């Protein structure tokens, strides 16, 4: 290339760079610029259950109580609460300072109206199942709400900490505007929302929870996580949510970027379908459990980004994985179990997984496939678009499924849907076990934390041993931030509520 040519090319590049650079306009100093890959799918806090929606709604709406970084129940709209000893009445005192974004105070009438809405079948709130034990609601005064329960329900309190139990203005409910306008009482007001593109949040100066650290949050939806990383590099965003460990692990390599990782409640699991042969055989399921090398999957598919876990993933209830059945790979035992069950030559099965949800699903399936090959099980991987997967999953129409299932702060709320006889998702789990049902019911009634812990430890052990599913590990919730972002506290439920206290330097 001639020198003149080079100069001209450079000049062109400079023009392009100038154009590109010019577009990175400095935003208002105290507005947090944020990016995530998946956007909320709706604004109705009672109906939206997807993580992507909840993360947004938590900044706008508030429930009565909230879970802190250690999953302890802490005040939100309610300043105090009491459980009757028989665990059949739950009383809340509301924060007198609490106000909705429209200026109205939050009263017990709003609480009653909100829960009435959740419990109304016509609303179609999926979270209703968690609050089904509420028989009636009394409002002795503006500040007091009394929930009368049809049966003892200790996990209810923790369940109240979900944004799915957010308190919305009774007037908005009456006007039928929930889901179209977001009037909550949370730290931020939703100023505009362009789904799958951007949202603008403004700090709520009248928030009862204290002063919000930033003037607002400007959220962009960048569907490709590489683009998020690039945007971080180019300082287009201050703060970002990341999903894919392959991308997240690159963050610390970039000067000036910090990666926050927090082990989460949701768990990666290989779901077996115990109603399908030969997974009906306990020995076969156990053999699979023994043949799986959880560390190996974690290291390969997630680059080691996670923690091996049993069924219970919350810190208070978690047991040492090494005490659980076959948590270190034992091929000899696995082969023997297979032989005992009459499947010495193995068998063929299909494992389903969703494309991109989690991003590691396909990789996990491939490692599992390779591991199970060692005991003669021939796995076919069937990747499905997420909704197709969910549809199939809900019908229980699979041999095995690679899944990332959501966790909850309370073991009962987390698992009653699968492992109690009346569980809503019994047909997904396809496994009925008296011991498990028994332990679950005990845990629901027991109010003493120490005893609850014992009950659920037994549950944990038994579940791992009968192996209807093969629990693998929990991953991390990742957020990445520039140096100027300070004070973010991540929580195991992946909540971004900590943004309320973040400041920009």
């Amino acid at each position, binding site marked *: 290339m001639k020198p003149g040519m080079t100069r001209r090319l450079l000049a062109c590049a400079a023009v392009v760079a100038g154009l590109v650079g010019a577009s990175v306009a400095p935003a208002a100093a105290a507005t947090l610029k944020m990016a995530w890959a998946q956007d909320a799918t709706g604004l109705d806090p009672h109906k939206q259950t997807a993580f992507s929606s909840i993360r947004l709604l938590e900044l706008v709406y508030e429930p009565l109580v909230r879970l802190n970084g250690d999953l302890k129940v802490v005040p939100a709209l309610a300043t105090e609460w009491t459980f009757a000893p028989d665990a059949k009445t739950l009383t809340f005192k509301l924060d007198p300072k609490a106000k909705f974004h429209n200026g109205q105070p939050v009263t017990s009438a709003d609480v009653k109206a909100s829960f009435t809405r959740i419990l109304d079948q016509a609303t179609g709130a999926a979270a209703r199942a968690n609050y089904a034990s509420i028989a009636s609601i009394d409002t002795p005064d503006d500040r007091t709400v009394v929930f009368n329960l049809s049966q003892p329900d200790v996990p209810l309190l923790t369940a109240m900490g979900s944004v799915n139990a957010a308190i919305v203005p009774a007037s908005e409910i009456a006007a039928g505007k929930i889901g179209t306008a977001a009037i909550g009482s949370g730290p931020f007001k939703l100023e505009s929302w362009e789904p799958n593109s951007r949202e603008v949040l403004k700090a709520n100066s009248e928030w009862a929870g204290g002063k919000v650290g930033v003037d607002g949050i400007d959220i962009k939806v960048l569907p490709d*996580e*590489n683009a998020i990383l690039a945007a971080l590099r180019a300082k287009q965003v201050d703060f970002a949510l990341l999903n*894919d460990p*392959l*991308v997240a692990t*690159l963050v610390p*390599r970039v000067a000036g970027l910090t990666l926050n990782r927090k082990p989460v409640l949701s768990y990666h699991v290989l779901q077996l379908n115990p109603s399908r042969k030969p997974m009906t055989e306990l020995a076969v399921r156990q053999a699979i459990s023994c043949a799986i090398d959880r560390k*190996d999957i974690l*290291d*390969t*598919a997630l*680059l080691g980004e996670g923690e091996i876990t049993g069924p219970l993933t919350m810190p208070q209830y978690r047991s040492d994985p090494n005490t659980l059945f076959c948590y270190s790979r034992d091929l000899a035992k696995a082969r023997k179990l297979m032989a005992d069950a009459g499947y010495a030559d193995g068998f063929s099965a299909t494992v389903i997984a969703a*494309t*991109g949800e989690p*991003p590691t699903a*396909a*990789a996990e*399936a*491939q*490692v599992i*496939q*390779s591991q199970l090959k060692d005991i003669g099980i021939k796995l076919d*991987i*069937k*990747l*499905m*678009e997420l909704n*197709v997967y969910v549809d199939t999953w809900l019908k229980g129409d699979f041999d095995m499924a690679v899944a990332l299932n959501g966790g909850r702060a309370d073991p009962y709320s987390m698992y009653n849907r699968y492992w109690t006889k009346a569980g809503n998702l019994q047909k997904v789990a396809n496994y009925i076990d008296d011991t498990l049902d028994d332990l679950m019911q005990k845990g629901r009634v027991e109010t003493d934390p120490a005893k609850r812990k014992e009950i659920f430890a037994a549950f944990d052990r038994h579940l791992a041993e009968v192996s209807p599913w093969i629990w693998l590990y929990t991953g991390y919730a990742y957020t990445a931030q520039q140096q100027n972002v300070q004070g973010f506290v991540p929580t195991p439920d992946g909540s971004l509520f900590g943004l309320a206290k973040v400041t920009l330097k």
Partner: protein
Amino acid sequence: MNRFLTRLLDHSSGRIGGVIVLAYILIALAAQAGLTPYDPLQQFRIERLQGPSLAHWMGTDMFGRDVLSRLMIGIGQSFLVAFSSVGIAALAGTLLGLTAAWFGHLWDGLVMRLMDVLLAFPAILLALLFIAVVGPGTFTSILAIAFVYTPIFTRVVRGPALSLKARDFVDAARTFGSSTSYILSRHLMLNLVAPLTVQVTLALAWSLLTESGLSFLGLGTQPPASSLGLMLSDSVNLMEMAPWLLVFPGLAIMIGILGFNLLGDALRDILDPRSRRALA
């Protein structure tokens, strides 16, 4: 046939394109026959994400699988998708275009409006919807790509078929009382081979691209099988950690498409009577 081959070999881009395509086909066949350095599915998980070395010429992927072996198998897979989808589309398109041109009137209108409907659908959406309905996989992406290309082939065939229909030798055949099927197969089809061949090679290049695009969206070939597009999309997030995972399949796609394009250009030069006149 021999004359044709000589002319192809005399044509510089035909020579290069032919060599590339032939090499790819040989690689694909060799891989099918098991002549890969390693089992492409074997996961050497302790050797994960290693760069190119003597043991693994193109390095290893995140499962410790040999990239070269997977590339070889992947070429076969991509070619399978490309050839089958284009084959189906060419067949369906030829049938529709030929009959539309020949019978005309209502049938022509019906077929062409239907093709308009398909063409008016954005191609990638058509493929997306199709795959969403049937579920992803090799066979589905073959059908999806075929689905997208059928209207294009229909148009490509209908035009020349219409002008062939008006040619004297077709008139001559009609004066002999030759049957419609005879005229369609011997007079029209035989003369459509040239434009079709050109279109087919170009469509092959396109479908290689489409296959990689579909795989990038997670809708193409399913793991652990490998195709060039899938290898590319799998490695996108590892781009910085393991660039060789992106570079080799990327190059393989580029060269493959280049091969088809060169071959297509050469065939156009050789088979197109217009350019032949220019040469004479």
